[in-house]
């Protein structure tokens, strides 16, 4: 991909494709899941060819999501490890919300909010997967008791609502912090963006002369 010179790679091509497969699955699962969650939204089942199709296709999309998100976990877990500075950033979150980031602690590749989204989904997606398996009619319900299915469907719904809330936060953050969307669509950010939002990450790149993560390179080695 051609991109302006001097910009930094935020997300590599594989990462971006992986992310958008995950995103597409999540949106489809939200639409089909909400159709089966509340009568007000049953009309969404029309997007999938009717109620039977919605019910049939939902779990298969879920499997793709699980695999796809596993790919993101493999690529991102290291940069999302929680540390002491994340607590300081979280305590200064009111300043972040107000777009006044001068006194907010410097952030490495991901801030505490991004880490929260990452780990929430890392927890919720497997929870949704396992409870979903227990209530997958036609394949697995003969192996689970009805009482277990009752709990599974309740936990599945709760986890889904939590995941949707996290997802709304994630999407809004991408809209709110300008330049983030392009980081995930085209893959690059400007040095100013990195300085403003991920100064610690930017300092590490500058120190090593790297332009960002490349395949097989987590950003701490020079890329040329």
């Amino acid at each position, binding site marked *: 991909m051609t991109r302006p010179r001097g910009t930094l790679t935020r997300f590599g091509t594989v990462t971006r494709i992986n992310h958008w497969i995950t995103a597409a699955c999540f949106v489809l699962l939200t639409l089909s899941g909400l159709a*089966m969650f509340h009568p007000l939204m049953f009309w969404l089942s029309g997007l999938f060819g009717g109620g039977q199709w919605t019910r049939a296709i939902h779990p298969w999309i879920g499997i793709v999501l699980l695999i796809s998100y596993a790919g993101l976990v493999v690529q991102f877990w290291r940069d999302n490890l929680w540390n002491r500075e994340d607590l300081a950033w979280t305590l200064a979150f009111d300043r972040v919300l107000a777009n006044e980031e001068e006194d907010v602690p410097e952030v490495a590749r991901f801030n505490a909010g991004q880490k929260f989204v990452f780990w929430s989904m890392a927890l919720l997606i497997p929870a949704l997967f396992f409870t979903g398996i227990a209530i997958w009619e036609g394949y697995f319900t003969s192996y689970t008791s009805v009482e277990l299915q009752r709990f599974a469907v309740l936990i599945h719904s709760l986890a889904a609502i939590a995941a949707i809330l996290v997802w709304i936060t994630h999407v809004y953050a991408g809209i709110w912090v300008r330049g983030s969307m392009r980081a995930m669509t085209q893959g690059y950010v*400007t040095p100013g963006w990195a300085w403003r939002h991920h100064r610690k990450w930017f300092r590490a790149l500058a120190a090593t002369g790297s332009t960002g993560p490349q395949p097989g390179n987590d950003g701490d080695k020079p890329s040329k």
Partner: protein
Amino acid sequence: MSDLQSQNYIRRSASTLTPPSVRNHEAEVAKLIDVTRCIGCKACQAACMEWNDLRNEIGYFEGSYDNPMDLDPSTWTLMRFTEWEDDKGNLEWLIRKDGCMHCEDPGCLKACPAPGAIVQYENGIVDFISENCIGCGYCVKGCPFNIPRISPVDRKSYKCTLCSDRVAVGLEPACVKACPTGAILFGSKSDMTDWAGERIVDLKSRGFENAGLYDPPGVDGTHVMYVLHHADTPSIYAGLPDNPQISTVVSAWKGLLKPIALAGIAFAAVAGFMHWVVVGPNEVQPEDELEAERLLEAKGQPDATDERPGMDRPV
């Protein structure tokens, strides 16, 4: 099985609007199964298959009178046999005709996400409208009696209809018609309750002091009722629930969670929008680009000098 326009709906799954209900002379019906008169001949089972055109696949002998061993998509009623010993060591052969109880407060209908896939007619019959069924199995989770079964062939849920098609044209259910001992009766719910009362007096006079009517209040009563010789312990009749009610897990999922969840999602979306309106986007400023450039120059980055200015400035 199918939609019967000759009956008002009083409940319709996954629907918030009042269904058409102009008729006002529909009495509540009930089927009364007098377990104490049943001889276990299975004529009711055969009649159910006959009327509803259901033929199960032939299975295997499992060492029990129960045949087949469980309800399934093409077995809507099933005689369940129990050998029970009372505390004096006397053997009693308890035979219960199992099937949908047609609850006044149907858990299957409460749990169903597909509009109009489960309806309750004004006469009390709970019916599955197969064309609207999506095969999710939520009715199975909602049912306190473990009745609905999902067909592996068409992925739709099936159970006893109380012969709603026959009842709609003034006939009694097929099982009632076939019963040779009068153990299964059908009529208005009040008539059936009265008749059961007489029968229970009779049973008590003959030593069954715990004889009683099974019309469980936990589901607001049922439109299929049993006369039991041991109404104090329904569970001895092949696991008939002592106090059936819709599981609190199902109630939480279908009751409280739905409005709270939708409100939460709406709140999150509105909060995001309001943040945008009040605080606005977080945009990279020219100073940020300058600071970044300064840092890169300080580190002696060769390609960080000339092309940089002017790039990706916020508009």
